[in-house]
């Protein structure tokens, strides 16, 4: 009995199903998913950053070339997106640390607070960059 097992739904599948069938998951799951995605983006960016730095430091000509490439609007749009991603990752990371230190805090309001902090600081950063 019980040896025939149904393959368990993966987290992502369950997440998408619930999200698009009108019975969404709690905000904790959403910020966790975003935390994971932004973490992947930041890890990818770290490699890219080292690559660009390495190619820029080969000499004067290459430095000018890379700097001109970084001035293009597409790169600027990506940089702005990176600011938002890093801000959200930081704010939610602080929320997680707070929850570890003071478990009785309300995680839902903390999550909304992290989103508000992200939006305010992101808007400031965007207006500063453009």
């Amino acid at each position: 009995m019980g040896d025939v097992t149904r393959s368990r739904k993966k987290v992502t599948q369950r997440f998408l199903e619930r999200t698009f069938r009108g019975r969404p998951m709690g905000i904790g799951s959403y910020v966790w998913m975003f935390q994971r995605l932004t973490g992947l983006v930041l890890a990818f960016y770290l490699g890219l950053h080292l690559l660009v730095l390495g190619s820029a430091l080969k000499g004067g000509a290459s430095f000018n070339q890379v700097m001109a490439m970084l001035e293009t609007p597409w790169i600027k749009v990506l940089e702005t997106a990176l600011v938002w991603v890093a801000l959200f990752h930081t704010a939610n990371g602080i929320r997680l640390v707070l929850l570890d230190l003071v478990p009785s805090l309300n995680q839902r309001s903390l999550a909304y607070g992290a989103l508000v902090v992200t939006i305010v600081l992101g808007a400031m950063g965007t207006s500063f960059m453009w």
Partner: protein
Amino acid sequence: MTCYLPPIDKPDAIYNIQILRFDPEKDRYPHWESYQVPFVRTMTVIEALEYLWDQGEYIAFRSNCREFTCGSCAMEINGKPALACDTLLEDGMRIEPLSRFPVIKDLVVDTSTVPERFKALKLWPECKHREPATKDSPPLPAAKSAIEHYRETYSRCIECYSCLDACPQSDSDESPYFGPLYMLQLARVMEHPLDEKDRVAQAAEAGISHCINCYECANVCPMNLSPATIVNELRSKTIRRLDLLFGRRRKEVG
């Protein structure tokens, strides 16, 4: 199986519901089947299943008290674990067994590993150097907060395993994180005045650091408890113990 439902003469509507059927003697894989149920006001999912049973559709399911006390009838309703006696019937509902456990038949799952794990975790107050109680021995020195926690939280858990099913980090019995239910029970025995066992080390070995703070267990709990808060409290004790930092997590628990 007895049916408590009065005969349905004038239904408000005819609802279509889908149920994941699986018969180990006939089927190799579970399959969806749709049924038509006449809906009367305040009809719950368990009543719909009993109606189908009366019509000759012998769908296996567990139910006992029908008033949110026993926790037998937990199943995934529209993808979310809930008590079938606590959920009102809706049109187009999709009902499936809890997906964390192996299926025995239809909506009945094999949860026999949970009490085994309770036994392995020794979820009873363990004390070594205490004389047996007599008639004259004074009452236990229990802290007021402990009594409050027992009354408000630990005693209210009905062990329906909804939190285990909702937890994305506790996929099966092989996953390193045991699940919110075990953490709640560990916190329960930890607050017992007689308990002397190192429950914090046990929680670390049961993979408490794998919790991702998604609070899905608190969202699905039919008794409105918050196992995630208890997990966070336990973990805040775990991270203050330097001897638990390295190499204590994959050991045999007990």
